[in-house]
């Protein structure tokens, strides 16, 4: 199962496949793809030892745009699929790609439990506050007054705060990135992959088609003014008062990662029969 030992260092381009993305010109997700591939190169990984797992949506198309093993599953279920994969194959590096609709709405319950379970995964959510693939409906992170065909005049609903929820649910690493800075993203993702347990990287990734005003995010983002903390109480206060544009690692916990496999085989399957024998 293990790859032969190879010493050739790979570059970011070696992690990019030659498929042409379905994304619109100017989409933030292009830079996230670059950030991921740069991170994998920085980490010295081989593409055959990395799996990228996703659900449905614009962001979830990423697996096939890498040269890694990919799993493009059903809407909202990327985290469970990745959990099963990593629990069964702890030797693999598993990245999970999602968006604000896939990850926070239909997949919201899995987000809570993935944080809590603390499997050694890196969860990258490309947040553009809109359902892009279905052409512009409000997502859980959409502002309450954003008007759309499905919710004329806005939803009137408070936005979901993914970082606070991740912290409350037990994520071991919480960061926010911005797609306008692929090098910064690469460093953030590499650090998230290195950190044991469940690492959550929320990436502001503008949708220039349905949310053209998000082009202004470039001016709004700024590096987080403080060092990351390992104190959940301090992290909670920071995240609760956060303007939504602080970029960087915001929380680094030290909970041990989930380990599914409890032992090497002690018995053969046939040995289990003795409990049934009369």
């Amino acid at each position, binding site marked *: *199962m*293990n*790859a*032969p030992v190879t010493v050739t260092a790979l570059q970011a381009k070696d992690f990019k496949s030659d*498929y042409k993305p379905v994304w619109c010109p100017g989409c933030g997700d292009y830079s996230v793809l670059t950030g991921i591939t740069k991170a994998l190169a920085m980490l010295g990984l*081989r*593409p*055959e*030892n990395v*799996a990228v*797992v996703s659900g449905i949506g614009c962001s979830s198309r990423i*697996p*096939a745009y890498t*040269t*890694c*093993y*990919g*799993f*493009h*599953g*059903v809407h*909202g*279920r990327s*985290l*469970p*699929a*990745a*959990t*099963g*994969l*990593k*629990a*069964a*194959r702890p*030797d*693999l590096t598993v990245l999970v790609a999602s968006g604000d609709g896939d990850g926070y709405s239909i997949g919201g*319950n*899995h987000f*809570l*439990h993935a944080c809590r*379970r603390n499997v050694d995964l890196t969860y990258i959510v490309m947040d553009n506050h809109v359902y892009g693939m279905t052409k512009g409906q409000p997502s859980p992170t959409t502002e309450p007054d954003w008007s759309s065909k499905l919710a004329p005049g806005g939803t009137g609903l408070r936005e979901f705060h993914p970082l606070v929820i991740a912290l409350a649910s037990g994520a071991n690493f919480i960061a926010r990135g911005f797609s306008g800075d692929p090098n910064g993203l690469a460093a953030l993702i590499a650090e998230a992959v290195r950190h044991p347990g469940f690492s959550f990287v929320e990436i502001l990734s503008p949708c220039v088609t349905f949310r053209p005003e998000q082009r202004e995010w470039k001016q709004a983002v700024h590096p987080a003014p403080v060092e990351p903390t390992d104190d959940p109480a301090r992290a909670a206060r920071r995240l609760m008062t956060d303007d939504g544009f602080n970029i960087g690692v915001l929380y680094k916990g030290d909970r041990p990662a989930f380990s*599914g*496999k*409890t*032992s*090497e*085989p*002690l*018995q*053969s*399957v046939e*040995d*289990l*029969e003795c409990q*049934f*024998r*009369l």
Partner: protein
Amino acid sequence: MDSTRSVSVALAGSGGAGVMTAGNMLLEAAAHAGYYGLMTRTSGPQIRGGEAAAMLRISTFPTDGQDDRFQVLAAIDWQNVQRFAAELPLGPQSLVVGDPAQGEPPEVFLRSGARYIGLPLKQLAGKIPGAWPNMVALGFLAGLIGLPFESVEAAARKAMKKGLEPGIAAARQGFAEASTQQAFLLEKPTARGARWLITGNEAAGYGALRGGVRFVAAYPITPATELLEWLAPALTKIGGTLVQAEDELASINMALGASYGGVPALTATSGPGLALMIESLGLGVAAEVPVVVVDVMRTGPSTGIATKSEQADLNLALYGLHGDAPHIVVAPNSVSDCVAATEWAVGLAESLQVPAIVLSDQYFGQARAVVDVPAFRSKAFERVKAGSGQPYKRYAVTESGVSPMAIPGAPGMQYTADGLEHNEKGTPSSQAHDHLAQMDKRARKISRLDPGDAWASIEGEGETAVITFGSCTGPAREALLNKKIKLVSLRLLSPAQPERLKRALEGVKRVLVVEQNHSGQFLRYLRGEYDLPGEVRSLRRPGPLPFRPEEILKAL
């Protein structure tokens, strides 16, 4: 059934009376003495405690069906036991045993013409410090059916951690009381060779591991929970992994993820959980990821009757998936067949890279039976794994329809498993020719499956045939005993085997289709997939009550 070859006894009482403990010991004692047997249970709606009944059948031959009537109904007390009246059919030959100190038996039990005798269980137990009435009842029932006392003692020694000596003394009291009764003595046992004591849920779990499953995702649901609970320590012992999921949407996707990683994977559930998993089973079909789901069917729709059996998830298992999604559906037809059927399902899923659903049910799952050591599948099935070779095409269109599957970690073979329609390389495609080629390929690998004799159990000969599946098989078999009637119990429900059934029904002029659901799902399925000969009649009704041989015989 002739009561010298099979005796059915029930022991009822309120919560804490120890009827399940005593019932299990009676089954163990019967097994020790060389008999076959089966114990099912029923209880009130309370989470813990409440009235309960252990329902046993002890026989000289292997069976996991219910007899027409119980020969003996014994009760430690009668509180709310009348609630079980429909599950405890009695007749004029039956005996009702109760402690006079607990009052008279409910009228509903005596209306059958059953004879009532009082047995002062509490008083007899009271003579022995530390003894309980359930042990007196155990001894009495064992004596009544002719088990040797040494078997009762052996069962007690195996089961009891404390109060053993007083318990045995109490059982001896009950045993002695039985000698004064007109008894239901069984013939000498005929069991030869090794036997197992196993539930259908344990059997399915064990079959899964034999088939190679090493990853299980678990979300609790009655009546499948015990299957998952059996697997948890078993996987630990053999070096596998079990993850408790947050819901069934997660459990099926965890299983798919593990299987994509090359580790054969399974989850078990019941109807409500299967309904939630259906979308992702379609992903397993499209992305060609093997996975096995054991559906321990219970009474539906919705929450239904969670603790009772029904064969009403057949439509969901066969037709629930959106799009054209060929997959495997297998139904074990006895408690012990849960081993082989599940092992087979794992092999089929792995070798064909497709989801397989195993339709067990609550009756099998929670019944504890003394069975001959089950038959195993001898043929090993394995996933066709991709070696090297460039360029790798994950979904290559092959003659068999099966394409070699690369496992993450293999260099140069990276691909994306995708629920989007794709071309041979796995690249998403909305082209008509790619869709058709992949649909054909996925259908081909299923339709070419050669199940050999495993597709059905075929017994007897005659111009009339009973066609059934799952837990209706036991009572049907018994109804047809010594009759010139053929029994066909389908084990492979999807893909259908029309040619095989045609051959099996050669010369048959009348067919009775037996199934435990309200709408006749199995009949409709048979009519859709097969040409049934001559006159076709349907015997169907919903759960929760199991079919009994008499009911099937009447319909013939």
